[in-house]
């Protein structure tokens, strides 16, 4: 993974606003980012864009696991995306972008590229 020299962290929302197992969408530097809380401070961020339907909806999918991988299923045609890598688990030629995420003083933040 490339470490960017300069990057800004954008506030998403307080951690306690996130329902475990559910996602929200945040605007980060004009980009739509889907942010998911699994449990505790385990948080993932990927693009909100679903390449199959071309709609911005991944944040509204159902979070779960396949084998050992955490994933979200698109609410439109149900393809699953790996939360860690952004790779589509049903078609490895397709992937969505991932974002760095952290929690500072109870605030969830996503790195703006």
């Amino acid at each position: 993974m490339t470490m960017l020299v300069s990057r800004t962290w954008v506030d998403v929302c307080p951690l306690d606003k996130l329902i475990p197992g559910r996602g929200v969408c945040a605007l980060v530097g004009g980009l739509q980012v889907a942010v998911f809380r699994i449990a505790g401070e385990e948080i993932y961020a990927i693009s909100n864009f679903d390449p199959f339907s071309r709609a911005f909806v991944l944040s509204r999918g159902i979070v779960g696991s396949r084998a050992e991988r955490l994933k979200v299923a698109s609410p439109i045609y149900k393809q699953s995306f790996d939360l860690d890598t952004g790779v589509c688990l049903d078609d490895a030629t397709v992937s969505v972008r991932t974002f760095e995420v952290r929690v500072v003083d109870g605030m969830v933040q996503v790195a703006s590229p």
Partner: protein
Amino acid sequence: MALEHLRHMASHEDRRTLVVAGNGMVGHKLLEILVERGATAEWDIVTFCEEGRPAYDRVGLSSFFNGTSAEELSLVAPGFFDQLGLTVHLGDAVASIDRAAGEVVSTQGRRIPYDALVLATGSFPFVPPVPGKDTPGCFVYRTLDDLEAIRAYAAGGRVGAVVGGGLLGLEAANALRSLGLETHVVEFAGRLMPVQVDEGGGSVLRRRIEDLGVSVHTGMVTTEIVAGPTGGVAAMRFKEGDDLPVDLVVFSAGIRPRDQLARDAGLAVGERGGVVVDDACLTSDPRIFAIGECALYGGRIFGLVSPGYQMARVAADRLLGGGAAFTGADMSTKLKLMGIDVASFGDAFAAGDGCEAITYRDPVANVYKRLVLGPPDRRGDRKVAGGILVGDATVYQTLLQMCRGDMPTPTHPEELIFPVRAGGGAPAVGVGALPPTAMVCSCNNVDKGTICAAVGAGCDSVSAIKKITKAGTGCGGCVPLVTDIMRDEQKKAGVVVLNTLCEHFGYSRQELFDIVRVHRITSFSEVLAAHGSGEGCEICKPAVASMLASLANGHILDGEQAALQDTNDHFLANLQRDGTYSVVPRVPGGEITPDQLIALGQVAKEFGLYTKITGGQRIDLFGARVDQLPSIWRKLIDAGMESGHAYGKALRTVKSCVGQTWCRYGVQDSTTLAIDLELRYRGLRAPHKIKGAVSGCTRECAEAQGKDFGVIATEKGWNVYVGGNGGMRPKHAELLAADLDRDTVFRYIDRFLMFYVRTADRLERTSVWLDKLDGGIEYLRRVVIDDALGICAELEADMARHVDTYECEWKAVVDDPARMERFRTFVNSDEPDPNVVFVTERGQPRPAYLHEKQDPALLAIGAKP
């Protein structure tokens, strides 16, 4: 002494002869054990079977009325009696025993010398000596022949009565009910099942049974059976009160051991009957054994199969020179009577010294539980000593294991009988806690270790385990426990159980539904932790959410449930291809006022929504962004509208025609019925969407035969159709019942829908489900009309709870700021979604196609650099 005697005989001859009188459940079990243990190498075994057919499952006798055939009830494996060393004389009984000569003589004149004789003659039903007891139309309930005779006679009758409100009496009553008779139970004692349950349990049982439409008369002494002009039964007369007109009477006033043979031969018999036996199951003659219901051990008759099987095991062992002993048996039982769970175990009446009972009674759910605790030990701890469960016996196995000392009694045993509350940590006792020595199947003496070993050896289904271990082949009461043990073992071994919901659960939807229902599970994490693995997924999460919703009816956005829902359920709206949502308010029966139409129009104009009439006679508003949904609904609700549940796997619409009210052909008021049906079932969560329709006459303008449930008016009432649908694979609905009155329409549809909700697979519509039901519409009729499974009362109660707790999901949201919070496009910004772009077509908005969008750059966002 007996042993020496037998050995002594053996030294005289090479082969010896064993005569078995009676080929009932216990007599046959003896033969099976002997064959399995190789006894035919030295014994010639001759069996006399008084009945015309060899051994069959008497415990399952009543299932004969639900379509189980006599062949299916047979306990005799094909070819069993063809084995060398085995002879059976069907339809021939042992008539007398000549002990001095060591010989039996049969009714048909056969004389068979014996070296050993086993009496397994069972018992006969006791018929009280009331005048008229032999009138045509009087029956007993013991053999297949009895049942055949009852069925034939019942065809001409309307009212049936059972004398005796014990276990068998109630079973007989259920049978009469399933034959379509108005049914009465007359019990001499002051309560039902006086032997098994106490006063409190008896009254709960009574109320439940009366709910099923059976009339119960306790404390009544029958004095005469009165014949009518044709000579058949016409009425029952009592010491107290009026005559009861009946067409058929079944006596079930207890059983008496068949000990006549033994009496005539001068063997010791008990004061009130029964052939006296010792630990070896030997009678007062060391060459003659008695086992099963004809035997009297320790002054007791054991009227259940499981102790009978134990006696068979002892007698077989003795015949083969072993030293096994019968030391009495546990009379604990769990039964399903008319669909009602009843269990009694250990010292149920707290008769023991220092025993005390704790009772729990829920008059609303009609549940009664009584837990008897033994005297405190030195440390003040008390062991489970017995108990009674009526209406809910899910804890039976656990309590029984504690009662037998196979499992420790927890510190607060009373928690075991109180209902599990959401979040309240009731002691969860899984099968993993059972030691290998714990008895699982008491009918066949199979412990947990044996079942685990069978699973280890590759048994991967309950039927395979049944075949190998025989567990679950007696009364069947342990099958759920066997299933749990198997699953638990498979899970431990990491076996992937196939034909299951998804990778996270080793169960089908129906199995999982039962688990959730029976264990009263209220959250996904609870069911995942106890019965699943991993994190869940888009298949199991909504499936469980739907089960929780059909069972508990809480708001679907609350607590943990929020994370389970499909996006449609999560935002209570239907997701469209561009990420916007559609809004569909309920229009019950398709009837809408001008004011509501105007309100819909105003909302659509204000929010720039596209409007279209749906196939379900309502109006769909398209193009709403997530953040607009609450304001849209606020206005719709203020205009008197409510959620249409178009987003859920739930009841959609009940279409109707205008019927009698306007139409010149109409014969009934179809619109009112459709509205009432839709309001009754609105919000009902199901494995798939459900649609209904009502037509006002046979012209069928509402297309009711293309719906999951459809009602068509007739001159005499209503015809109900089920299992139809339009869509991708259209299917005509099938006629469930004709010419019903309004109440019956509701009752049948209540039962049908709840039965479907309980048993269908995920995403299985009623048509597919009905196709897969073994026996199809006929079977469905037996379940929802004749109540053959005895679950109709439960199904109706489930539906009543649904109706009582319904609330408009949208109203609950707009009334609650906390629930409103999620309806945002971006958590950190109030901007609208810049990617949602509309163009105008025919005067209305529609989503822009890709080439029409202003800023295609936005679409690149998802691609990795």
